[in-house]
C-alpha cells in the first residue's frame, strides 16, 4: 500500500499551550484576589471593577473557559492529529479558532469587569459575545470533523468519541442556555424566567462541568496516560462502556443543584437518582486510568508527568464520589449554600483539570521543542507544592462549610436561633485565610512551572511541522472477525455525533418540557405582579454588581431558614424574574424576604459602608451607586423586552414608565429625608433600595391566594 508523507501542525498546539499558561496565571490571580477579599473587605479597593461581585465571574470564566478551554484545545490539537494520522484539516481555521477564542476571553474580561453580565453563573457573558462563542465553536467543529473525515486510521480511538461528544453537547448547552432578548447592544434579559430559568441554568451549569471540564479531559486522559506510561489503556472495552454510560447519565443530573428549592419535586428526585448512578461510569473511568499504570508504578516515582496525572485522576475519583453524595437530599441540606461546594469544585478544578493540564504541559513541551525537560526536580517540587496547596485549599473549606451549616441550624432551648448570620461568618474567617494560603501555594507551583517550561523552550528548537508517514485509508475498511453494530458507528464520525446528541438531549428534554408546558408544575400566585420601572432598574443594578454571587433568594422549607429569613419560597413568586436570582452560595444572608425588613435608611447606610451598620461584616462598599445616575434612557427598551417575554405590563406602558419611575424615586427620596438623609432621586442607590424593598413582598399581600389547579 502507498505510504503517504505528511506533517503534524505543532504551531497551533504551541499557541494553545502558551495561552493555557497565560490565562491560567491570570485566572488564578483573580481567584487569589477574591479569596483575600472575603476576609479583607478593603481588598475590594472600593472600586466597581475590583469588587468581588465583578471579579468572581472573571475568575470562574477565566479558569474554566480560558485556562481549561485552551488546555482542551492544546490537547485535542496534539492528540487528534496523531490518532487520525492526519494534519489538522485547515491551518486557516486553526488560526481563526485560536485568535477568535483569545478575543472572546479578552472581551469577556473587559465586559465582566465593566458590569455587563447576564446574571447566570458560568454563562455571564452578554449576547454579542455569546454569538461570537457560537461562531468560533463552529470553526473548531469544522476543523475537528474535517480532520476526522480526512484521517488515515480506520478506527476512531475512544478519545475522539469524547471530543465529539464534548463538541456537540457544549454547542447544545450554550445555545439553549443563552436564549435572551437584547434591549441594548450589550444587555439582554434571559428568555426564561424563575423556576424555568433555574432549571435551564443548572442543566447548563452541571453539564458545563460534565462536558467542558470532564469529557474532553477524559478523552485527553485516554490519550496522554497511555502515551506517558508507554502502555495501552487498561481495558478498552471498559472505556466504551464508560463513554456511553457517562454521556447518557450525566445530562439528567442538573436538578441536584436545586434540591429543596421551588423546583417541582419530581424533577429534583430525577436529578438525585441519576446523580447516584453517575458513580458507576465515573469510577469505571477513573479505575481504567489508574489501572493503566499497573506494573508501571516505578515510572510514577521517576516521572513528574505521571505523578501529576495520577493525582489528577485520583482527584477526579474523589470529586465524582463526592458529587453524588452531595446530591442526596440529607447531605445537600447541610452542604448547599456553604463553602463545602467551593471546596468540592476546587478538588475538580485544581486537582483534576489543573494537574492533568500541568501533566500535559510537561509532556508536550519537551516533545514540541525536541529537548529534555529543563529540570525534573523543579517539576517534582511543583507537584508537591501544588498538592499541598490543594489540601490546604480544600480541607478548610469543607470544615468551614460544615461548621457554618451546623451553626445556621442551632436553636437555643427557648426555640430562638442561636447565632446571627454574621456570627457564623466571623467564626469561619480563619478557614478563609488558610484557604487563600492554599491557593497562593498552588499558584506558586504554577510560577515554578512557567520558569521550568521557559528554560526548556529556550534550550530546545521548535518543530513546527512534524514529519510523519502512514498509508492512506483503504476504500473498504478492514474487518476483524464478525462485524457488530458498534463497529458501524465508530467508523462513522457524523453518525457518532448524531447518536451522542440524541443520548445527551433525552435527559434535558424529559426534565424541561413538563416544567415549561404544564401548569400544575408552577402554581400561579395572583398577588405576584411585575416589577415597577424603578425596581426593574434596581434589579439590573443588583445583577450588574453580582449580588447573587453571595446572596441567595431562595428560602428552603427548613425550620431554621423560615425562622431566620421568613416564609419559604414558592415557584409562583418568580414568574417575572428574567433572569432568576436564586444564587448558589450564601456568603451573606438570604435576601428572598428582604423587602420591608429594614427601613430605607438602613439600606442606604449599609450600602455606603456595611461595617457602619454590621460591625465585622465582610461585604464590600458600593459607594459608586450614590453617584451613578439611573439610565432612564433604557427604561422603555427594558419594559418592551419584558413585554416581549410575556410580562403583563399594560399596552404602551414603555412610553410612560419613566413617569412612574420618577414618582417612586421621589417617595423614597422623601422617606430618606425623614431620617436626615439628603440624596438626589435619580441615583442608582434609590433604584436598588426600591428593588430590595420589593423582593419577596408580593406573597405577603395575599398569602392565601394560591390558585388551585382547577
Amino acid at each position, binding site marked *: 500500500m502507498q505510504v503517504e508523507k505528511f506533517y503534524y501542525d505543532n504551531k497551533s498546539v504551541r499557541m494553545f499551550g502558551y495561552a493555557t499558561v497565560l490565562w491560567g496565571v491570570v485566572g488564578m490571580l483573580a481567584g487569589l484576589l477574591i479569596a483575600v477579599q472575603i476576609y479583607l473587605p478593603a481588598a475590594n479597593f472600593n472600586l466597581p471593577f475590583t469588587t468581588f461581585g465583578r471579579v468572581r465571574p472573571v475568575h470562574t470564566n477565566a479558569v474554566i473557559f480560558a485556562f481549561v478551554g485552551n488546555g482542551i484545545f492544546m490537547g485535542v490539537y496534539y492528540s487528534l492529529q496523531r*490518532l487520525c494520522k492526519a494534519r489538522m484539516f485547515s491551518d486557516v481555521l486553526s488560526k481563526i479558532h485560536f485568535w477568535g477564542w483569545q478575543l472572546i476571553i479578552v472581551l469577556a474580561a473587559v465586559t465582566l469587569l465593566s458590569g455587563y453580565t447576564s446574571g447566570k453563573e458560568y454563562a455571564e457573558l452578554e449576547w454579542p459575545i455569546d454569538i461570537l462563542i457560537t461562531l468560533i465553536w463552529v470553526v473548531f467543529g469544522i476543523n475537528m470533523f474535517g480532520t476526522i473525515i480526512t484521517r488515515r486510521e480506520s*478506527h476512531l480511538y475512544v478519545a475522539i468519541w469524547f471530543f465529539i461528544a464534548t463538541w456537540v453537547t457544549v454547542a447544545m448547552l450554550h445555545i439553549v442556555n443563552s436564549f435572551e432578548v437584547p434591549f441594548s447592544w450589550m444587555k439582554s434579559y434571559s428568555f426564561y424566567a424563575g423556576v424555568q430559568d433555574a432549571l435551564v441554568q443548572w442543566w447548563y451549569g452541571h453539564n458545563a462541568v460534565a462536558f467542558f471540564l470532564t469529557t474532553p479531559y477524559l478523552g485527553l486522559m485516554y490519550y496522554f496516560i497511555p502515551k506517558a506510561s508507554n502502555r*495501552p489503556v487498561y481495558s*478498552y472495552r471498559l472505556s466504551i462502556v464508560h463513554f456511553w454510560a457517562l454521556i447518557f447519565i450525566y445530562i439528567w443530573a442538573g436538578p441536584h443543584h436545586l434540591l429543596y428549592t421551588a423546583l417541582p419535586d419530581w424533577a429534583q428526585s430525577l436529578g438525585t437518582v441519576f446523580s447516584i448512578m453517575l458513580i458507576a461510569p465515573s469510577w469505571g473511568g477513573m479505575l481504567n486510568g489508574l489501572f493503566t499504570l499497573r506494573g508501571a508504578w516505578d515510572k510514577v516515582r521517576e516521572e513528574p508527568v505521571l505523578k501529576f496525572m495520577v493525582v489528577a485522576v485520583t482527584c477526579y475519583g474523589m470529586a465524582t464520589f463526592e458529587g453524588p453524595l452531595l446530591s442526596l437530599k440529607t447531605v445537600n441540606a447541610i452542604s448547599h449554600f456553604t463553602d463545602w461546594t467551593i471546596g468540592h469544585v476546587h478538588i475538580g478544578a485544581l486537582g483534576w483539570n489543573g494537574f492533568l493540564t500541568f501533566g500535559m504541559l510537561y509532556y508536550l513541551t519537551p516533545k514540541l521543542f525536541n529537548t529534555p525537560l529543563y529540570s525534573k526536580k523543579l517539576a517534582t517540587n511543583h507537584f508537591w507544592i501544588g498538592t499541598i496547596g490543594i489540601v490546604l485549599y480544600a480541607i478548610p473549606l469543607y470544615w468551614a462549610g460544615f461548621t457554618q451549616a451546623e451553626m445556621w441550624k442551632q436553636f437555643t432551648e427557648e426555640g430562638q436561633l442561636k447565632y446571627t448570620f454574621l456570627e457564623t461568618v466571623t467564626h469561619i474567617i480563619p478557614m478563609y485565610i488558610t484557604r487563600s494560603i492554599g491557593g497562593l501555594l498552588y499558584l506558586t507551583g504554577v510560577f515554578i512551572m512557567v520558569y521550568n517550561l521557559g528554560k526548556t523552550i529556550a534550550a530546545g528548537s521548535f518543530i513546527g511541522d512534524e514529519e510523519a508517514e502512514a498509508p492512506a485509508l483503504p476504500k473498504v475498511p478492514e474487518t476483524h472477525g464478525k462485524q457488530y453494530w458498534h463497529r458501524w458507528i465508530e467508523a462513522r464520525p457524523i453518525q457518532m455525533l448524531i447518536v451522542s446528541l440524541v443520548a445527551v438531549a433525552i435527559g434535558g428534554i424529559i426534565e424541561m418540557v413538563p416544567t415549561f*408546558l404544564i*401548569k*400544575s408544575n408552577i402554581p400561579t400566585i395572583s398577588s405576584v405582579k411585575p416589577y415597577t420601572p424603578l425596581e426593574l432598574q434596581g434589579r439590573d443594578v443588583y445583577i450588574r454588581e453580582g449580588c447573587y454571587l453571595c446572596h441567595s433568594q431562595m428560602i428552603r422549607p427548613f425550620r431554621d431558614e423560615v425562622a431566620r429569613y421568613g416564609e419559604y419560597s414558592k415557584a409562583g413568586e418568580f414568574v417575572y424574574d428574567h433572569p432568576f436570582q436564586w444564587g448558589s452560595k450564601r456568603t451573606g444572608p438570604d435576601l428572598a424576604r428582604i423587602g420591608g425588613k429594614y427601613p430605607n435608611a438602613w439600606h442606604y447606610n449599609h450600602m455606603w459602608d456595611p461595617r457602619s451598620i454590621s460591625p465585622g461584616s465582610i461585604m464590600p462598599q458600593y459607594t459608586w451607586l450614590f453617584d451613578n445616575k439611573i439610565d432612564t434612557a433604557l427604561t422603555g427598551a427594558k419594559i418592551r423586552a419584558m413585554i416581549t417575554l*410575556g410580562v403583563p405590563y399594560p399596552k404602551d406602558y414603555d412610553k410612560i414608565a419613566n413617569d412612574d419611575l420618577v414618582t417612586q424615586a421621589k417617595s423614597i427620596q422623601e422617606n430618606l429625608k425623614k431620617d436626615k438623609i439628603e440624596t438626589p432621586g435619580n441615583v442608582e442607590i434609590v433604584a436598588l433600595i426600591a428593588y430590595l424593598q420589593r423582593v419577596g413582598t408580593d406573597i405577603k399581600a395575599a398569602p392565601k391566594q394560591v390558585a388551585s389547579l382547577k
Partner: protein
Amino acid sequence: MLLKDKFMKFINYLEKITGVDIYALTSFGIFFTFFIVMVLWAWKADKKMINEISQIPLEN
C-alpha cells in the same frame, strides 16, 4: 409582540400531564435497552480488534 405571539412562552400549554408514568417508563426502557446492547457488544467484541485499537495512541 411578534416573538410573544410566534414563539413559546413556556406557560400553561397543558393544565396537567396525564399518564405521566409512560414518560418515565419509556425513557427507562430506551436507556436500559441501549445499555444492555452496548455492554453485550463491548463484551463480545473481537479481541484482536480491541487490542489493535488500544495500541493506536502508542503508534506515533
